């Protein structure tokens, strides 16, 4: 029987549990060594109940949402034994609830007076876990084994101390062991802090009250999400979209989903999605789940506290062996960074039919992973620079998409150009919005960006892992697609080479890399867009005069840069008639 927790204790403990997860994150960020954790903030922290159900998660990285819960459940099951006080599990196995090998998760039990009351866990993206290429994100591998060290759930910490033998084994398989160890220690410290806070709460409120409050917190979120799902019209909503290729061949890969809403329950069925492929774009089921939860929270109410309760109304069918639930040992490095984005696109597309005003048109749909490195000509030391580049956000009901921003499953920061120029042999030439890249619509898609630089070193290796260079981000309800992405190398002699979206190439001094990221799709018929907003975009140089006329039916006099209202109305009427035919 559940004891009733007073509204006071419930509200206070709900806040305290979320705050504990946040405080773990602050501790992790402070004591980590690598820039990827410290500055790009690529990590997540969460609290779980005795049964491994998610109770509270800090708002860190969307792609970790939900997948953390899955990881903890799978790892505890697989480990099988009891985790004692002072023990901590480590794992990065994508086939035991993980995402891709660089994401390492640590799980610790919290005991109070000898009784298990909770688990805490944190996940951090390590910038190298061995494998074929530095950074462990190679675009051309065919097996998981080439992507780095695979760590099954084992105890990294036993009785409060790090197991030297396990640590040695891991460190012997990665490229920068001291940095890795520094980051792992920070992860251990973050979990220790989480456990300490949980014990303090149990001391203060009693273990019984704490665990009852956890139940109540999850029930609360379930009530709120059910109230929201209830508002979605019952029905079956289907959609499909494609990854443009697999990295090792040119075949597009289909993702298909059928969403079934009935009362306050919602089912996601991926039957009909293409099978797993040889290239590294397979997404472990944990990543697929994250996309589902991200979309569910986005279209309902992002202020609902995220925990197991939010997931109870959800039923998921992902056929084994498909690209969203591959079988070992398919490679998965890009599933987390690219396939996860396409999964979200498909889900929004399906739900657009159910809740048209709560979704967005397709955003850039990629993270534009770019890695460049070589030997520094002055020092002879190796250098590597990794970044992801923003693009257009999709148009929304009543609101344009946002220009030049990270979309959906990622939210990491850029590195200042002045910092890059001071540290690496590259010089930037542009960082600006791409005109006419936002999909025309009543609410325009966000513009992609152009980011370009010239190589100052004699040579370097450039690797790209991206998407949406062949298939445009789609618009909604008459909105037009956003511009596709482009990766170009301009040689010193002026010749331009077009690169594939997933490639590894050699470049030389004077070569210019031009990255043009995709724009977001438009929302609604562009002929219904307020002509003054079109004029504003034209004045701001985001939409050309030609596009204003061609896509929006807005006639602007180039002499005085004013809208010719009569001409515009006539043009729009004839364009509307043409579409009606």
């Amino acid at each position, binding site marked *: 029987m559940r004891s009733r927790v*007073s*509204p*006071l204790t419930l*509200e*206070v403990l*709900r*806040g*305290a549990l979320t*705050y504990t997860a*946040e*405080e773990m994150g602050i501790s992790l960020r*402070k*004591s980590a*060594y690598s*820039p990827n954790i*410290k*500055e790009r903030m690529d990590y997540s922290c969460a609290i779980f109940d005795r049964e491994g159900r998610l109770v509270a998660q800090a*708002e860190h*990285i*969307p792609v970790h949402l939900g997948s953390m819960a899955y990881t903890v459940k799978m790892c505890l099951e697989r480990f099988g034994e009891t985790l004692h006080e002072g023990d901590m599990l480590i794992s990065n196995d994508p086939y035991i609830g993980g995402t891709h090998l660089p994401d390492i998760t640590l799980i610790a039990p919290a005991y109070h007076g000898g009784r298990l009351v909770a688990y805490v866990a944190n996940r951090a993206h390590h910038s190298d876990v061995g494998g074929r290429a530095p950074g462990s994100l190679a675009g051309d591998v065919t097996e998981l084994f080439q992507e780095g060290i695979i760590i099954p759930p084992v105890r990294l910490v036993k009785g409060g101390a790090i197991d030297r033998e396990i640590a040695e084994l891991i460190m012997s398989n990665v490229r920068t062991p001291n940095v890795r160890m520094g980051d792992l220690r920070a992860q251990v*410290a973050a979990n220790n802090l989480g456990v300490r806070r949980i014990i303090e709460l149990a001391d203060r409120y009693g273990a019984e009250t704490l665990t009852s409050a956890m139940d109540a917190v999850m029930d*609360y*979120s379930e*009530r*709120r999400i059910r*109230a929201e799902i209830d508002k979605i019209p019952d029905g079956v909503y289907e959609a499909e979209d494609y990854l443009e290729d697999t990295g090792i061949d040119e075949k597009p890969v289909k993702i298909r989903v059928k969403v079934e809403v009935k009362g306050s329950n919602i089912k996601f069925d991926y039957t009909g999605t293409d099978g797993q492929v040889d290239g590294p774009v397979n997404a472990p089921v944990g990543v697929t789940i994250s996309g589902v939860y*991200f979309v569910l*929270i*986005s*279209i309902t109410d*992002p202020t*609902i506290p995220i925990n197991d309760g939010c997931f109870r109304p959800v039923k998921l069918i992902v056929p084994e062996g498909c690209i969203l639930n591959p079988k070992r040992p398919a490679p998965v490095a890009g599933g987390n960074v690219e396939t996860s984005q396409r999964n979200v696109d498909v889900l929004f597309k399906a739900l657009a039919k159910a809740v048209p005003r709560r979704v*967005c048109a397709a955003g850039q749909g990629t993270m534009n992973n770019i890695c460049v490195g070589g030997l520094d000509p002055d020092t002879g030391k190796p250098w590597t620079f990794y970044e992801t580049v*923003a693009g257009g*956000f999709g148009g*929304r009901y009543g*609101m344009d998409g*946002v*220009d*030049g*921003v*990270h979309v959906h499953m990622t939210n*990491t920061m*850029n590195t*200042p*150009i*002045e910092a890059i*120029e*001071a*540290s690496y042999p590259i*010089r*930037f030439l*542009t*960082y*600006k*919005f791409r005109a006419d890249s936002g999909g025309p619509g009543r609410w325009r898609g966000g513009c992609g*960006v152009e980011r*370009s630089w010239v190589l100052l070193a004699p040579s370097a290796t450039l690797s790209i892992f991206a998407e949406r260079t062949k298939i445009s981000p789609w618009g909604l309800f008459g909105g037009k697609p956003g511009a596709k992405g482009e990766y170009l190398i301009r040689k010193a002699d002026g010749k331009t080479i077009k690169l594939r979206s997933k490639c590894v190439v050699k470049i030389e001094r004077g070569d210019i890399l031009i990255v043009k990221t995709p724009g977001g799709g438009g929302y609604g018929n562009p002929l219904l867009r307020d002509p003054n907003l079109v004029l504003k975009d034209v004045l*701001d*140089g985001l939409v050309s005069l030609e596009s204003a006329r061609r896509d929006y039916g807005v006639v602007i006099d180039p002499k005085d840069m004013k809208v010719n209202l009569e001409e515009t109305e006539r043009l729009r009427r004839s364009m509307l008639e043409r579409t009606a035919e």
Partner: protein
Amino acid sequence: MSYMFRVGVDVGGTFTDLIAIDEDGNLVCVKVPTTPRAPELGVVEAFKRLLSIEGFEASGASMVSHATTVATNALFGQFGLELPKTALITTKGFRDVVEIGRQRRPEPYNIFFKRPKPLVPRRLRYEVDEKVGPRGEVIKPINPDEVRALAERIRAEGVEAVAIGLINSYMNPKHELEIKRLIVEASPNIFISASSEVSPEYREYERISTTVVNAVLMPIVQRYVENLIEALGKIGINAPLYIMQSSGGLVPARDITSKPASMVESGPASGVVASTFYGSLLGERSIMSFDMGGTTAKAGAVIDGRPETVMEYEVGGSIHKGRVVKGSGYPVRFPFIDLAECGAGGGTIAWVDEGGSLRIGPVSAGAEPGPACYGMGGVNPTITDANLILGRLPDTILGGRMRLNPKLAEKAITEKVAEKLGLSLHEAAYTIIEVANSIMAKILRVVSVERGHDPRGFTMIAFGGAGPMHACALADDLGISKILIPVSPGLFSALGLLISDVRHDLVKAFMEEISLLEPEKVESAFKALEARGLEVLRGEGFTEENVALIRCVEARYVGQSYEIMIPVEAPFTDEADELVGRFHERHEALYGFMAEEEPVELVNIRVTALGLIERPKLRRLKPGGPKPPARSLKGLRDVYLEGPESPIECPVYIRERLKPGNTVDGPLIVEQYDSTTLVHPGWSLTVDPYGNLVIYRG
């Protein structure tokens, strides 16, 4: 007779507070409503009230210090203030840097998020074909004809202010200054702000953003300062006017107009300054300041006798769990006294959401209609209503000028909270307070625990109208065992204005490995900054005896992109070797590890130039005995302090009648004109020689 006196005026959202202190330390306070559209009118009104008091004549004012929200309000788009038409000039290819920012969404799960509206529309962001490299080398020189043509265009556009922010200008300001010269040539009266002058540090987005905010504010602040000086002059106040900066330091009003971005958070900073001063008076070096007003609560920390300061802040951003959400506002890079903030003030509304959970804020009933018990039409229960129901607040406040109606509070709490949650009236009111306390405890944790400071070693100074009511409960939560309630909690922030020094912050970027640096080069750069600081202070009437120069450096491991600040002594030549060791130690203290094998890079050197202002003397009061005088006891009241089940009978004292030395054990209540102090069981209260209430645990 007439006095010589100094005046502090703090223009807040609701009230304009004026505090004057004479040479003997006598304090006089005035509170008038703020006049948002023309804040100088409220200031003048406050002065008129002061001058109506016997002995205060206009000619006696020796210095006026002023905190204002005029800059913040402009950026929040409040009170219909139009932003001046502003242009940006930047390096070719980079005009969108200022809008892309750090490419992050402020709320990752909200697909309906918005970016803050650009302060300069894209069409007014102009590019110049030039480039300076990362070591300051000119890669592509400026073509003056191109800039002249641009200057003409800007003139024709009718732009009021111009920001100049070129890539890598922090290493070489030559191009920016050249552009500035040519623009001013074409438009002599234009407001202009160059990034290499405003914030000569690396990170282009933050530097350009700071410069744009600065340029936008220049016309607004200039106009405001001129109006204020004129209005004060009309009533005979001609004393020098100083403006409070976000750093907690003052600056002469005529100088703020070139760096108005340094004053965006000036009001809240002064509360922490006042806390620091009180701390020094009482020998306390670790202080947590807790300021709770009508709409928000704010926490700050004083560590080792100095307010915690950050070097960057997002103006106009939204707040989540005490912190400004990254990417939700406009970054401004100046020293800011670090504050954590939450939407919990006396007027904050309690409500029950769809899932049946009690929520506090963020909506506030504000000054109008105010809490339900004010009887001005408010129907939603607020924190003040809950305090009234629990017997914690008296039913008249402001010295009897305002009656609180418990019936209205009861109705609001019953209908909007108690019935929905199935609670009794007192259970509901008690829950509202406890939930509000748990939210406020978080901001206190942000400034202590999150920074690695154990709150148990702190003294809390609680102020603002509502601070003293909640201080004990919060101190219990954090394990703090000493609280100080200053004499006039509602006017405490304004007091900070009377005890600040004049402050100028100067910075120069280095970006070189320390082991490869010639210490003499650093020393001469320090000397140059100091000379500049001294020169400015001399121009403001300070002599060398009244000036303090504080040096520090910012360093990091090569490859990192965050810095650690380390104070250094002069001259730098003797210090260079030691510095690296101190950096490792500091890094370990902050982040838990050091990397002795890694090279350390000097990023910036900084000089803070202080023009020292004589501290006012606070008057010691005539002591009384340990027992409070009988006439200070107002009566007994039933107060719900330890749960909603049954009240505890508490003595209620009148603050103005308590004497230094008086000591009483909790539970008890102390009432005064602008605040009510609640002392929980297990705490005891003593009045200190200055009339402050000091509350100890045990």
